[in-house]
C-alpha cells in the first residue's frame, strides 16, 4: 500500500511494470530465504546426524523395537499391569503435587511480581525495570539447572523439583500476568485510593477481581506444562513418576511391564489434566453459561 501512495503511477503500463517489479523482488527475497532455510535445515540435520551416537538411517528401522518389546512384554503380563499401576500411583501423586505446588507458588510469586512491574499499579514505579529483569532471569533459567544444584544441596526428593519449577513459573506467569494487568481498568484502583486503601487492598479488591479469570486460565495452562516438567525432573533424580520410570528402565528386559504401567499412568494423567483444564479454561475465557447471573 505504501508504494502506491508515495509514488502514484499514471498509466496502466506503469502500474503493471511497478507491480511485476514488486512481485519479482518479493519472490526473489522469498526464494532466497527459502533456499537459506532449506540449506540450514539440511546442514543442521547432517551435523546432528554426524555427532549422534547412532545414525538416522540405522536408527529409523529400530524406532519401533523398544516400544514393541515393551508392548510385547506388557501384553504377556497384562494381568500384572493394574497391580503395578496401584504400586506406582503414589509416585504419580507426588509428580502431580510437585506440579501443583509449584504452579501455586509460582502463581502467587508471579502475581506479586507482575503487579510490581505494571505501570499504574506499581508502588515503586522506578523499580519496574528491576522486577522485569528478575522475571526475565527466572524465565531464562531452565528448571533442570536449579533442580540439579538443589539436589546437591538438599538431597534428592520432590522439594528441589518444586522450587525449580516454581521459580520458572514465577517468571513465565509473571510476564503473562503483567500483560493481563496492562488491560485492566485503573478506575477501581483510583476509587479505592480515594477511600484511603493501602496498596495491598487496592490490588486485592481493585485489580484481582478484574484479572482473576485470566490469571486462573494462564495458571491452568502452566499446570499442564509443569506436570510434564515435573515428570522430566523426576528422571534426573527429583522423585515422582519420572524417577520410577528411570529405575524400571534401568532394570532392562524382564521389567518392561513396570515401564509400560508407568507410561500408561503418565500418558493418562497428562491427557486427563489437559482435557479438564482445557474445558475449564474455555469456560473462564469465554464466560460460563451458568455463572452469567452471578
Amino acid at each position, binding site marked *: *500500500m*505504501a508504494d502506491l501512495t508515495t509514488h502514484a503511477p499514471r498509466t496502466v503500463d506503469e502500474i503493471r511494470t511497478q507491480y511485476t517489479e514488486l512481485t519479482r523482488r*518479493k519472490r526473489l527475497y522469498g526464494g532466497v530465504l527459502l533456499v537459506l*532455510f532449506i540449506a*540450514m*535445515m539440511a546442514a*543442521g*540435520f547432517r*551435523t*546432528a*546426524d554426524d*555427532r*549422534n*551416537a*547412532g*545414525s*538416522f538411517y540405522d*536408527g529409523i528401522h*529400530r*524406532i519401533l*523395537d*523398544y*516400544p514393541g518389546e515393551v508392548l510385547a512384554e506388557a501384553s504377556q503380563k497384562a494381568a500384572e499391569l493394574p497391580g503395578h499401576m496401584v504400586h506406582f500411583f503414589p509416585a504419580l501423586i*507426588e509428580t502431580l*503435587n510437585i506440579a*501443583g*505446588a509449584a504452579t*501455586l*507458588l509460582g502463581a*502467587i510469586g508471579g502475581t506479586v511480581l507482575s503487579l510490581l512491574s505494571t505501570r499504574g499499579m506499581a508502588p515503586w514505579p522506578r523499580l519496574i525495570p528491576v522486577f522485569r529483569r528478575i522475571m*526475565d*532471569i527466572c*524465565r*531464562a*533459567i*531452565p*528448571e*533442570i*539447572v536449579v533442580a*540439579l*544444584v538443589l539436589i*546437591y*544441596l*538438599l*538431597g534428592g*526428593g*520432590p*522439594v528441589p523439583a518444586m522450587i525449580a519449577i516454581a521459580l520458572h513459573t514465577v517468571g513465565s506467569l509473571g510476564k503473562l500476568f503483567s500483560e493481563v494487568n496492562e488491560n485492566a481498568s485503573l478506575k477501581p484502583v483510583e476509587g479505592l485510593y480515594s477511600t484511603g486503601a493501602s496498596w495491598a487492598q487496592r490490588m486485592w479488591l481493585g485489580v484481582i477481581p478484574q484479572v482473576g479469570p485470566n490469571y486462573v486460565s494462564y495458571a491452568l495452562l502452566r499446570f499442564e506444562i509443569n506436570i*510434564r516438567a515435573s*515428570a*522430566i525432573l523426576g*528422571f*534426573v533424580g527429583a522423585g515422582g513418576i519420572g524417577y520410577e*520410570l528411570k529405575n524400571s528402565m534401568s532394570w532392562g528386559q524382564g521389567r518392561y511391564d513396570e515401564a509400560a504401567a508407568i507410561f500408561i499412568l*503418565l*500418558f493418562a494423567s*497428562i*491427557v486427563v489434566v*489437559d482435557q479438564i483444564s482445557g474445558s475449564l479454561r474455555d469456560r473462564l475465557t469465554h464466560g460460563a453459561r451458568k455463572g452469567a447471573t*452471578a
Partner: protein
Amino acid sequence: MTTMDINAGPLKGQMDRLFLRKRLLNFAIPAAIVLYLGYVCFAFDVLGLWQRASLDNARTLVADSYSYKTHVTRDNRSGQVTYAIEGERKGEYPDGMRPAWVAATGDTTVIDLEDGHVVRFGPETIEYDIPGYGLVSATPSRSKGVQAVLPEGEVPEWINLSKNRLAITTDAGRLTVTRNRAEVFRYFMGWELFFFTLDSPYHGMGAGALLGRALSGEAGAIVNDVWTNKMWRHGDVAWAIGETILMAFLGTFGAGLVALPLAFLGTRNFMPVGLVRFATRRVFDFVRGVDSLIWTVVLARAFGPGPLTGALAILITDTGTFGKIFSEALENVDEKQIEGVASTGAKPIQRYRFGVIPQITPVLLSQLLYFLESNTRSATIIGAITGGGIGLLLTQAIITQKDWEEVAYYIVLIVLMVMLMDWFSGWLRKRLIKGDEGGH
C-alpha cells in the same frame, strides 16, 4: 429498573445471599490454598528436609564457584613436591615450574600463605607457623603415624588431630598431613586458568603483551591455546551450545514442516471426511500426551545419545502441539479470500498458496519463533537425559561434585543462550510479521 421498586424485598435477599457467598469465597480460596500448601509441606517432608540439607555442601558450592585452590603436595615417601591447581592433573605445573609464593631450596620447601602464615616442608618435619597461635610441627613416619607437636594449651577446634592425621584449617589455607603425604591448599579468587593452562607459553601474560604477540603473527596460536584449554574446554563448550541450539532449531522447524500439511487434515473447512479429521486430531493429542520425556526415552533406544535424538524428540512432541494450533488457525481462515482467488480461475494449489497461506503465516511464524525460544530450554533438559549439548556438560559437571566453577560457568552460558534466543526470536518475529503487512 421498575422491578427494583416493586420487588425490593426478594431482590435484597438475593443480593444478601450473593454477597455472603462472595465473602465466604473470599476466605475459602486463600484457605484452600494454604491448606493445600500445608498438605504438600507434610507430604514432601519439608521439615525433615531442612535437617537433611547440607550446609557444608552449600558452603563448598558457593566458595568454589568464585574461587579456586592450588594444592602443594609432598609425597612423604619420596619427598617429591608437586603443584597442581585444584589438585587436577590437567592443572599441574610442569617440571621445574612452581607458583611464585613457593620457595624451594634443597630439601626444604617454604610455602607462603600470606598474612604471616608460613608452611615449611622440611626433609623430616612439616611446620606450620600460625600467627597468634604458634608453631605446629608434625613428623610423619610409616611406623608411628603422624607425630604432632602443638603449642601449650587446649587444641583449638580448627585443628583436627588423630594418630595418623593432622588437619589445620585457617583463613589463609589448609594443611593436611598423613603418613603418606602432606598437602597445603591456598585459596585464590576468580576462575583459574580460564584462558591458558600452565603448559601454554601464554600463561600469565598481560592483555597488552598478548595483543603484541597476536599482532606479530601469533594470533592463531593464542586462539588455539584458548580454544583447546584442557581445564575449561572452550571448544567443547561452544560445540555443546551449538548442539543445543541445533536441537531446538531442527526440532521446532522440522515440527512446523511436518505439522502444516497434517493440520489441513484436522480442520472442518478443509477436510470433509469426518473420520480422517477425527483420526488426525487424536494423533495430535496422542503425540502431545505421550510427552517429550517418553519420546526421548524411546528415541534414545533407537538412535543412541546425541543431538539428533534430542532434535527428533522435540520434533515429534511439537508436531502434536503445532498440529493443534495450526488447525485451529486454519479453521479461522476467512473464506472470502479463498473465493476471491478461486474466482480468478486459480487451481487448488494456487488457492492454498494465495488464499490460505498468507492468512495463517503470521500465526504460524509467531508460534514457531515462540517455540524456538522455549525449545532451547527443553533442549538443555533433553540433552541432560539423552546425552548431548550443554545439558550433558552441566549434568557431568554437577555429578563430579567438585567443579562448581564450571557449573557456574555453564549456568551463566545457558542463561545467556536462552536470553539471546528469546531476543533473537522476538526480533525475527517483529521483522517478518511487520514485513508481511506491507506486502499483501
